[in-house]
């Protein structure tokens, strides 16, 4: 009763302080499940595969490690699984130090990129494999295996051997096997890498649904940005053994903290320029190609050189010159790339810089009016850019 009273109070008096608000809505702070402190992995004395990485993952989170080949994401995952020993640093799982515990004793399970299903065992036996090591009673094992098979919808395939299944089915068996022991932490190594595009799209959502249904915390490794952004609740962009940025998918995409991150995820146009006007509610940046008017304040001073990151889908194209004096530039259409749902136009600006602008094909007549060689004007609004200092 007391709770409803304060809730009413909070809703009827908007001027109440924030402390009253939080007492009305009991927020459950996410429990930390995995903590990695200062992990480093050095090979052969000089090659630093993982460089002093620290991170925390909360219970129920799906955390993605995103990066290109050789950035150290797989090495980090293998250290979490216990297949590699970190040169330095510690790993804590639910508060317990597991750095020196061998892989087979950790309550962590991994789904391998190649699935690694035991070829000499049936699907049923593959899933039951880990359960048998735990000395579970036979009927309990059977019950768990059956529930796993139901979860991934492979009940009819229980007696088949892995080589008799399709790629997608094998992947589901691998998932069932990794979830069978109800691990505290699930590691996924490029889970959708081996599937074709249609299957990948379908499986992405299915996978997330299953993981959320089971309620297991997940760390996933991928080089595919789409996979990371659709599946994860938080992404860590990795390069050369360290994290460049950690945040939710929209944070990492719309608010990159550096040119490297902005360039890594999706497409981006970066203009180099100098801050001309620096006010609390707007900033203007003079670039060679155009004048940017950014509709919010930034931490910087006049005269500072910055980069302005602008994503292609935020740019609008027209044949007429915009009337205002900022946030537009002109160029020649040198390339048109048709993707079906959208089209990317490559515009060569007067300064020689080539920018990409993406237009949605929301009519079927395939003519936004622009063709190769046309002079076009690209314009964008004042909240579309991100100012980057490094």
């Amino acid at each position, binding site marked *: 009763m007391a709770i409803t009273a304060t809730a009413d109070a909070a809703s009827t008096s908007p001027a109440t302080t924030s402390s009253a608000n939080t007492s009305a809505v009991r927020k459950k702070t996410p429990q930390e499940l995995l903590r990695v402190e200062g992990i480093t992995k050095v090979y052969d004395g000089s090659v630093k595969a993982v460089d002093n990485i620290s991170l925390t993952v909360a219970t129920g989170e799906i955390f993605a490690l995103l990066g290109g080949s050789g950035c150290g994401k797989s090495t980090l995952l293998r250290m979490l699984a216990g297949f590699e020993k970190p040169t330095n640093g510690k790993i804590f799982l639910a508060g317990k130090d597991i750095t020196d515990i061998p892989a087979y004793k950790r309550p962590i399970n991994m789904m391998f990129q190649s699935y690694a299903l*035991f070829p000499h065992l049936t699907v049923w036996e593959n899933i039951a494999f880990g359960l048998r090591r735990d000395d579970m009673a036979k009927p309990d094992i059977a019950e768990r295996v059956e529930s796993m098979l139901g979860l991934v919808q492979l009940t009819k395939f229980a007696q088949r051997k892995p080589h008799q299944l399709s790629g997608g089915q094998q992947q589901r068996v691998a998932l069932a096997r990794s979830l069978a022991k109800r691990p505290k932490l699930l590691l996924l190594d490029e889970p959708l890498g081996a599937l074709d595009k249609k299957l990948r799209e379908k499986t992405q959502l299915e996978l997330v649904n299953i993981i959320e249904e089971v309620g297991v915390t997940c760390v996933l490794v991928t080089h595919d940005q789409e996979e990371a952004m659709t599946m994860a609740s938080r992404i860590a962009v990795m390069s050369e053994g360290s994290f460049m940025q950690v945040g939710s998918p929209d944070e990492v995409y719309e608010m990159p903290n550096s040119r490297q991150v902005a360039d890594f995820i999706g497409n981006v146009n970066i203009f180099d320029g100098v801050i001309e006007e620096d006010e609390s509610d707007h900033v203007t940046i003079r670039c060679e190609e155009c004048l940017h008017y950014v509709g919010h304040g930034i931490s910087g001073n006049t005269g500072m050189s910055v980069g302005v990151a602008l994503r292609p889908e935020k740019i609008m194209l027209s044949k007429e010159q915009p009337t205002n004096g900022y946030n537009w530039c002109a160029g020649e259409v040198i390339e048109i790339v048709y993707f079906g749902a959208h089209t990317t136009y490559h515009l060569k600006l007067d300064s020689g810089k080539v920018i990409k602008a993406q237009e949605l094909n929301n009519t079927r007549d395939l003519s936004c009016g622009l063709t190769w060689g046309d002079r076009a004007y690209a314009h964008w609004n004042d909240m579309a850019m991100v100012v980057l200092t490094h």
Partner: protein
Amino acid sequence: MTNIFNYLRNHIPGRQIVIGVPYLWFLLLAAIPLLIVLKISLSEMESTSVSSMISWTQGWPTIKLNFASYIFLSTDPLYFETYLSSIKYALVTTIICLAIGYPFAYFMARSPKHLQPMLLMLIMLPFWTSFLLRIYAWKTLMVNNGVINNVLISLGIINDPIAMMNTPFSLLVGMVYSYLPFMILPLYANLSKLDVRYLEAAADLGTSPFRTFWLVTIPLSKAGIIAGSMLVFIPAVGEYVIPELLGGPDTLMIGRVLWDEFFSNNDWPMASAVAVVMILLILLPMAIFNKYQSDQLEAKS
């Protein structure tokens, strides 16, 4: 020059040569000699030569088949015992080779990649010396005043020489020594292709390294184990040299019996009959092996 080449290419069908030549070779050098042995086994010995199978009477050929050798084989208990003994020694050899060879092969397969060619060479090196000489070498090692006994006596570990020669022990030493590479090589070939990720997956699922070995490594190396076992067992059954040089009166092996029938008794039909029965005995494991291999290939496709 090109004209000759074109002529050859157009008139000699390539595919038929590629299949035909080895087929002909097999026919002349393997199938026909087997048939000759079969023929001899069904004939009689006439003083120094074998009687002819086909005799002509009144213009019509009659084929005389003499089954006396086979009848004698089936009635005399010695032959039956010898066959059994041969199989027994071949089986024991195979098992010991597996027990010794598997760790060898496993160690080789898990060694750093740059060391593996050298380890392989070390296994193969004995093959470069004469087989006969190597078996003789074991004789000089194991004989009563041989190297092993002399060393042990001089060290004071024993006073009288251990009688090792001409016993089942010396036979098995020779057999295992000779056939070990045949077990190691197929096992190594199989184990080196074993995907480490299976072992990682097993560890990830909570299996200790010891149990991973029994539950994952051994089943996945089944093909190698069977190949190695066949390569040891089948020739070992009919082995002659090792039982002759290192074996004794209580190591009955069919190879020696065959030799005695052929050279000591000069009974060609008998010897041939012994050989034919031995081939039939080996055909069973070979058929099993063949079936297993073709099943494997089918499963892979």
